[in-house]
């Protein structure tokens, strides 16, 4: 049955995740072997340096990667479901552009308040989502309306970003790392608690609303026929998607493609209903981001390739594959 298939995929992903985590701890500029790893985990005497590396660097990084993976892929899954469009993602919907604009404005006009950047990012992303919702939900065809509003809003905020960078040529250096997206800016595990609450909260709420969101994907008339208030549910799902993505932006910057690729693959393997592919999204996203981070740390060691660049390299061809497949199916 479909549940068995999903569970098998989840098992496989769990194994991949553990392997990625172990390799992530063990490899890098400071190599460890397995016995050292266990000693460091248990914080045994004589392994203080390794413990420090593990607990202050690698573990937080793994946690950050997991959160980013879950947050972005759940956000993408929700957005693709409610818009009925498999190219929807937090980027396309302008959530990232809104956060980016607030971030670059902060860096340029209030550089002394740079410690507020997580809050600013979150507010920017969430406010953008609300703007898109307010405009898109009111249009006669909300499913397309939200996408169009997202495209429009992205354009506006990208223009804003360009304007700020033209007025202040120094800000680009600081903004650059944010705009690519990566896990190297994480400031310890405690800074990840609030995003974690948002991201796991969104995941749980999405699982509860999974079948309702599926009904919504059939269109407003069908959803209403099934006893759902379409506009209200759309607003809730969009808010969950926004909260999830915004939380990730606040510590990982504008990490693209995860919210596009992972839901797509999850749907193709586990099935169309959200209750089947959401868990796969969450775990798959975590694996993807953590694995990409690991590769990024190894490929040009001791320098690091941010996750965002790896995702762009993998993601851009992915768009073409999706479009190519769509055009091929359309011929039928």
């Amino acid at each position, binding site marked *: 049955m479909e549940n068995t298939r999903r569970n098998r995929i989840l098992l496989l992903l769990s194994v991949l995740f553990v392997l990625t985590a172990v390799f992530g701890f063990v490899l890098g500029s400071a190599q460890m072997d397995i016995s050292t790893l266990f000693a460091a985990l248990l914080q045994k005497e004589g392994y203080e340096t390794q413990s420090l590396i593990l607990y202050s660097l690698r573990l937080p990084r793994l946690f950050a990667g997991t959160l980013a993976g879950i947050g972005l892929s759940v956000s993408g899954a929700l957005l693709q479901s409610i818009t*009925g469009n498999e190219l929807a993602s937090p980027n396309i919907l302008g959530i990232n552009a809104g956060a980016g604009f607030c971030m670059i404005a902060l860096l340029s006009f209030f550089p002394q308040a740079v410690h507020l950047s997580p809050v600013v990012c979150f507010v920017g992303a969430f406010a953008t989502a609300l703007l898109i919702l307010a405009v898109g939900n009111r249009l006669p065809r909300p499913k397309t309306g939200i996408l169009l509003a997202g495209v429009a809003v992205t354009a506006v905020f990208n223009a804003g970003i360009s304007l700020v960078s033209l007025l202040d040529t120094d800000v680009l250096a600081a903004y650059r790392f944010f705009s690519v997206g990566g896990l190297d800016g994480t400031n310890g595990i405690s800074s990840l608690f609030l995003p974690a609450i948002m991201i796991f909260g969104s995941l749980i709420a999405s*699982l*509860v*609303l*999974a*079948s*309702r969101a*599926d*009904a919504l*994907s*059939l*269109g*407003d*008339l*069908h959803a*209403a*026929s*099934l*006893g*759902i*208030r*379409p506009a209200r549910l759309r607003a809730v799902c969009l808010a969950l998607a926004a909260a999830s993505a915004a939380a990730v932006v606040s510590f990982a910057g504008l990490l693209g493609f995860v919210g596009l690729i992972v839901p797509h693959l999850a*749907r193709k393997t586990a*099935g*169309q*209903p959200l209750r089947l592919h959401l868990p796969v999204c969450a775990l798959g996203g975590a694996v993807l981001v953590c694995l990409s981070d690991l590769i990024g740390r190894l490929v040009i060691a001791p320098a690091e390739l941010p996750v965002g660049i790896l995702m762009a390299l993998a993601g851009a061809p992915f768009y073409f594959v999706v479009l190519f497949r769509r055009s091929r199916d359309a011929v039928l």
Partner: protein
Amino acid sequence: MLCFENVSVLRGRKTVLHNVNARIPKEKLTVIVGKNGSGKSSLLSCLTGLVRYTGKILLDGEDLSALSPRTRAQKCSLMPQLLPDTALTTRQLATLGREPYLAPGGKLSQSDRETVENAIRFARMEDLQDTPVNRLSGGERQRAFLAMAAAQNTPLVLFDEPTAHLDADHVGCFLQRVRALADEQQKTAVLVLHDLTAAVNTADYLLVTDQNTCVFCGTKEEFLQQNMAQSVFNLHQTAVCDPDGKERILFY
């Protein structure tokens, strides 16, 4: 069963429906006919809670506007004219049909599961139940959504032009299934059809819309006696006997 009392619908400045008064009887098959733009679809849409109307709609004696969406969904279901291109399978659609009876995040009970099985069987989709709907042909897709409506198992089932884009073979099959809903499952079925011949030969009751209001609501016999086809559509009617001896009405 379903009463419209002075129902009007305005969309912007345009009057979509004006002072509709009609009674749709219980456990019968009623077909709504009318020219394009006469308000047929809007009449059905009023029952989804998405359309603002003035006047009263009574569903089994209860005011529709007083019902919560969930309760309403347990009493009445609508199959819209345009069916979405979804990757869900027929089985998954039928499972969604039980949504009005489940709590958020709730699981299907044994009786829910049985209802889903029966619905798939009713729609004759057992062989295709695990195929994504966007890979099905037009007629199969219609039956997939019929399975969903059957799983929702409401006393009142509405269909908005379900046969509009089906070939003659599938039209007959589908109408036969709707007939079965009314006869075998004692449901009240309401269909909007544009083909007058199919309408009159399938229906027990007819409702005619013309110029955004209801001009006729009565039995098939009354429809033929009053020659409504002539006054509304400018069509002549005649009766023919088919090889089984059953009388069929033709319009030309």
